[in-house]
């Protein structure tokens, strides 16, 4: 991630470093106050909240998964430490690690049983699980201490005088910083890009070959590990573990913090929790009014600052990245071998035989056979509602076939759409499906993730393997961008570029997956003449490299000197096939488009 370290940004970074330093020396600063241990406690609890909110942010903000069980995960983590350290006599550090592991396992179990649920229902399942977990703990007998909970949880080594309260406080600050770094490194890696891709559009993520279910499990487990750790730290800090920690009422503070700071921003959760902690501290004497105040702040934030503080800043003139100047000759630095490997020109890549797709009584696709060959530009045209898009969805397995067969490189195509994508068929949807809140470069990189052979751990720890793979991918992404004339726009948010550039970017992102067949659904709609030329030359380059480019179009003019072959579809059937010139003169095609039935007598 290249940032423009300028003016305001520099001030912000200096400010953050100062804040970290302040936090580290906080115990010394409050030594002379009348109640240092109380102040330390307040800040420590806030630190735990910040870690938990980061976890919530990964899950909800970046992953788009509605979790109402984060307080429950925290409780589970707390009990893990309490049981292992107090009852089993484990080493405290080991117990803390275990709390993260157990948090992750808990999260995995929950998401595995709820993969089929849509997002609203997923939220409800997490709510139910939270309640079950609390009930279980309350009735766990000896093991969990029932309603009273478990007491006497101490910092590793405190009883024997090995670690002071201040010492443990510093450990917690360090863990918070690490949690932030983990979040940052994950988000700025293939893992994070896939997560955001899934949040923005599960369909598009699938088209890029991402397995939605597998990735959701990963996201939720990472979030669970952090939440479990936060719970473990909290129980050590307050000295006990009790079921009430899991109460959703206590979760309000995390939601307030997250929304105040900014959902789906890196610094948002930390900043938000810090602010909430300050507010909470200011109104500490008011007891029952606390929830009232917090709730009101939350509602007001949503009304006044819908994106939160960091989100609003990012969207503003000051906080949003700008395009950079491209050095003369820079484009020459990026070379790209666009040729498709292991195919020969003219080879049949995909063959559909008698494909039928009925929706109830509607015969959307009614027996279509078509061949896509390497190195050709294949146009598919037809009037509105003729079944073009349904055909593509059937070929790429987004729809189950009513009958017929699809062969991909000589074998029956896999039934899962993301597998078809992995086997080399990438589609670009008619409606723009860019990941709008993500940068232009990251959009392209999302398309490349299948080439990045590194694990979550490589990404978190920025291992040499990650760094090598990443720099190679970035260079390739820039090469692709330069092919579309978009060099210099890498850091812009994809949502902020022009409509035509978005369409081009989407094509680029699809090319980044190294497809053998690239399916573009009405790519020319709404493009300016210049952008149309860029797109045309890009498609020519791709086809020359052996790729099969399938264009679904209304605009036959656009296909005229681009397509090698055009298939015309009407009412779910092929009515003509041939060169664009032949097709354009075909009377059946004109009829299909303009309607030739002569009703003039009947209507007279």
């Amino acid at each position: 991630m290249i940032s423009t370290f300028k003016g305001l940004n520099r001030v912000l970074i200096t400010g953050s470093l100062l804040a970290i330093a302040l936090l580290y020396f906080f115990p010394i600063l409050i030594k002379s106050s009348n109640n240092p241990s109380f102040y330390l406690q307040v800040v420590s609890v806030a630190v735990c909240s910040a870690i938990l909110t980061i976890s919530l942010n990964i899950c909800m903000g970046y992953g788009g998964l509605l979790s109402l069980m984060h307080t429950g995960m925290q409780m589970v983590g707390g009990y893990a430490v309490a049981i292992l350290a107090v009852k089993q006599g484990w080493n405290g550090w080991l117990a803390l690690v275990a709390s993260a592991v157990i948090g992750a396992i808990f999260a995995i179990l929950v998401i595995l049983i709820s993969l089929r649920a849509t997002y609203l229902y997923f939220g409800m399942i997490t709510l139910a699980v939270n309640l079950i977990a609390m009930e279980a703990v309350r009735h766990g007998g000896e093991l969990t201490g029932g309603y009273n909970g478990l007491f006497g949880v101490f910092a590793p080594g405190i009883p024997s005088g090995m670690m002071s309260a201040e010492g443990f406080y510093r450990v917690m600050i360090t863990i918070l910083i690490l949690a932030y770094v983990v979040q940052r490194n994950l988000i700025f890696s293939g893992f994070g890009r896939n997560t955001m891709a899934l949040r923005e559009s599960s369909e598009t993520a699938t088209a890029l070959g991402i397995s939605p279910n597998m990735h959701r499990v990963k996201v939720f487990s990472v979030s669970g590990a952090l939440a479990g750790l936060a719970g473990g730290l909290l129980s050590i800090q307050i000295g006990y573990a009790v079921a009430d920690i899991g109460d959703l009422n206590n979760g309000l503070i995390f939601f307030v913090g997250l929304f105040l700071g900014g959902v789906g921003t890196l610094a948002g959760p930390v900043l938000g929790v810090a602010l909430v902690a300050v507010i909470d501290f200011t109104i500490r004497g008011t007891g029952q009014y606390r929830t009232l105040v917090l709730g009101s702040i939350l509602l007001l934030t949503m009304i006044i600052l819908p994106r939160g503080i960091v989100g609003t800043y990012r969207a503003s003139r000051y906080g949003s990245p700008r395009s950079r100047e491209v050095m003369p000759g820079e484009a020459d630095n990026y070379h790209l071998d666009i040729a498709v490997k292991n195919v020969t020109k003219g080879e049949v890549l995909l063959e559909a035989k008698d494909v039928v797709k009925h929706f109830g009584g509607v015969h959307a696709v009614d027996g279509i056979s078509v061949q896509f060959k390497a190195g050709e530009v294949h146009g598919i045209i037809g009037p509105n509602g003729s079944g073009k898009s349904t055909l593509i969805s059937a070929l790429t397995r987004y729809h189950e076939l009513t009958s017929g067969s699809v062969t991909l490189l000589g074998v029956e195509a896999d039934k899962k759409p993301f597998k078809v994508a992995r086997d080399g068929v990438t589609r670009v949807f008619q409606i723009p499906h860019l990941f709008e809140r993500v940068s232009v470069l990251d959009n392209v990189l999302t398309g490349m993730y299948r080439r990045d052979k590194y694990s979550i751990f490589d990404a978190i720890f920025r291992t040499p393997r990650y760094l090598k793979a990443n720099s190679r991918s970035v260079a390739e992404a820039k090469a692709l961008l330069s092919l579309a004339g978009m060099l210099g726009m890498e850091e812009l948010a994809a949502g902020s570029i022009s409509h035509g550039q978005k369409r081009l970017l989407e094509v680029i992102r699809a090319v980044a997956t190294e497809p053998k067949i690239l399916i573009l659904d009405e790519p020319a709609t709404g493009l300016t003449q210049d952008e149309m030329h860029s797109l045309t030359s890009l498609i020519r380059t791709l086809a020359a490299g052996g790729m099969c480019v399938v264009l679904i179009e209304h605009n036959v003019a656009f296909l005229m000197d681009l397509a090698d072959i055009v298939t015309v579809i009407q009412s779910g059937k092929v009515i003509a096939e041939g060169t664009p010139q032949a097709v354009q003169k075909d009377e059946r095609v004109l009829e299909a488009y303009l309607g030739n039935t002569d009703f003039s007598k009947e209507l007279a």
Partner: protein
Amino acid sequence: MSLQIWIDGLFAGSVFAIIALSMTIVYQPTRIMNFAQGEGFILGAALGYQLVGVWKWPLIQSLVVLVIAAALMGFIMERMVMLPVQLSGSKFAWIIATLAAAMIFQSAFNIKYVNVTFSYFDLIEKDISIFGAKLSVQKLLVILMMIIVFIANDQFLKRTLWGRSIRAIAHNPDTSTILGIPTKPVIKLAFITGTIVIALVGFLASPVIIVAPAAGLFFTIQGFTAAIIGGVGSPKGAVVGGLMIGILDSVVRSWLGGTWGLFSTFFVLAVILILKPNGFFGKRVEGR
């Protein structure tokens, strides 16, 4: 198993069913599962305690005040929820806004009633005997109310123009607009009716089940559970789901002991969500 257990389950189930119905009323035009809904239950319980229990008001006056107060609460709730939802682009806006509204109402109740549980005397202290099992008139009233609310809601949605409009908005807000149906007043109406319904059941049921000022979220969650088992947005589902968890809770409670009742409810919820992800009568929804 004794009949008493089933009758108790039927009563508890009716309470949950009415709560779920009131949530369905709000859900239909808004696609929002309202976390603050249970606070309406507390309002009913609190007013019953205050007006009937403490101030000894006659029943009719108390009910009139209750309906007015509930309508007001529904009106305020609609603003608290819909304003952030309309202004914030976030997909999670509804849940955060309704949660915040729930917390605000809850703390308001907590501030007013410290260390109080809302259990005033039964409105009608009389028992009916059915084959040896006891059913208090109070409980019978709740069961009857469930049936009345279900039928009234069903008839309203099916037979009146406004009711049909609500179903139309639930299906397609844009097409409703071009037919001249105003969506905003319909949403307000839904919040107000939903709150009145749940406040009434809170009023009727609180003498039997002891209600704490902070218990709103508990009732919300029970209502959610019922609605989800039955299928979100389906009145029929709300009733089936509500009765199911009420009876299940009662049966399991008597069989294995108190704590297992709640367990079994959520366990059934989890199983149903896995086997039938859209509940018994629900359609596939994405919510907001």
